[in-house]
């Protein structure tokens, strides 16, 4: 016994193992926000990180705009052909919106699931070992960001806020393999109405999201749009997620499963929009 305790190295090793395991357990089980010291340090780190991310983003932007300039001619041609259609849709949308507002007034609806406010932010860092796909953005609780808000990037839904500090926050991407906490309730817009399902996984090899728990007699087809349904209580409805790529029966044979090509490019996100749901969350 006496000899055992005289071995200083062993004691130090033992204590550090206990401390480390304690820390891991503390941070995994600790729900919600990090302790104030952690938030404070994260904020300072994020602030310093901007010194590097701002010029890096700037350089990438310049390269992008040069590339954009080269493609302009081709792009212009294809855009022109789409213009006529767009005017038509715009006019239709305006009249529909008016109708909708009038009807809402009559029904005395104030906030519907489609209403939201948005906050714009820039990405200042990404978790290098992407076991957990997380981005660090330069907007925090001072700008109105709260836990679990939906985040859009590029053209579609990319994830949700998992940690908020005063001037920075962390976004967990929907591509993170561990989806017990980050499931998204989604709906597929088909010709015969909407079909509900839950985004619950990601297939890295083909870069597709998996939408499951779809009823078997649903009539989806490839190319149908998938949007958030807002029924999960966290996100507003009708945020674009992607388009259906493949439909099949799930492994139990009880429900359908659809593979979705995400609308946002998850690997090229430099600016994000944080979505604040207008109607009260279901918590």
């Amino acid at each position, binding site marked *: 016994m006496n000899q055992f305790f005289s071995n200083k190295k062993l004691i130090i090793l033992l204590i550090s193992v206990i401390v480390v395991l304690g820390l*891991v357990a503390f941070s995994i089980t600790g729900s919600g926000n990090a302790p104030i010291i952690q938030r404070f*340090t994260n904020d300072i780190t994020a602030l310093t990180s901007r010194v590097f*991310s701002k010029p890096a983003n700037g350089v990438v932007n310049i390269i992008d705009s040069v590339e954009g300039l080269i493609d302009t001619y081709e792009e212009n041609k294809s855009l022109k052909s789409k213009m006529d259609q767009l005017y038509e849709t715009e006019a239709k949308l305006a009249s529909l919106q008016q109708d909708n507002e009038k009807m809402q007034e009559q029904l005395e609806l104030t906030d519907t699931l489609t209403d939201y406010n948005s906050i714009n932010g820039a990405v200042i*860092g990404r*978790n290098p*070992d992407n*076991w*957990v796909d997380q981005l660090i953005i330069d907007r925090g609780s001072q700008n109105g960001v709260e836990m679990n808000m939906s985040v859009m990037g590029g053209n579609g839904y990319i994830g949700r806020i998992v940690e908020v500090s005063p001037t920075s926050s962390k976004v967990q991407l929907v591509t993170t393999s561990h989806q017990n906490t980050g499931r998204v309730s989604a709906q597929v817009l088909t010709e015969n109405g909407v079909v509900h399902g839950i985004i619950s996984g990601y297939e*890295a090899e083909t870069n597709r999201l998996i939408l499951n728990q779809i009823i078997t007699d649903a009539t989806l087809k490839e190319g149908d749009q998938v949007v958030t349904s807002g029924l999960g209580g966290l996100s507003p409805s009708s945020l674009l997620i992607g388009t259906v790529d493949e439909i099949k029966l799930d492994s139990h044979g009880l429900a359908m499963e659809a593979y979705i090509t995400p609308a946002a490019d998850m690997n090229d996100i430099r600016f994000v929009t944080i979505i604040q749901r207008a109607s009260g969350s279901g918590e």
Partner: protein
Amino acid sequence: MLKKTRINIFVPLTLFIALLLDGVIASVFSAQMYTATSDMVPRLIIVCTIIFAFYIDRSYMILFGILLGLLYDSYYVGILGIYTSLLPAMIYLSDKLKKILNPNLLVLIMITILQLSLTEFLLYGFYMVIDLATIDVTTFLANRLGPTLLLNTLLLVVLYYPLKKLADAITRD
């Protein structure tokens, strides 16, 4: 004493910048580095730690290792304790190795490859346990470990001489 502490600021500062650059590189070049078939993870902080561990006093380095490990965990993932234990462990290992090996670029490259593989395996094991890593070992070796080692060996070759100069300047006083 005063002079020593003032110069030693450069070590944590370099490590801190390496930590930040890891995140910035990962976000700016994510389209090129994280593809379906290969994940290149920039590990500037580990490369810098290994180089410094060969030239600078162990007790200092372990302290910086713990502090920066905590910062890394807190800033990037939010699960404290992973890098907090990995960085000091690597410094300890480097310290043991430096007594039997003569530090030059070739030896450092080999040690970096060894330690990085060890780190990646430990991380993979850890994330496996907490259910965040779903890939199997073969995929891990081919898609992740290989490209990561390649990228970081290149980084080491680029960073070796400037960091060695810095370490020499610090130890000379």
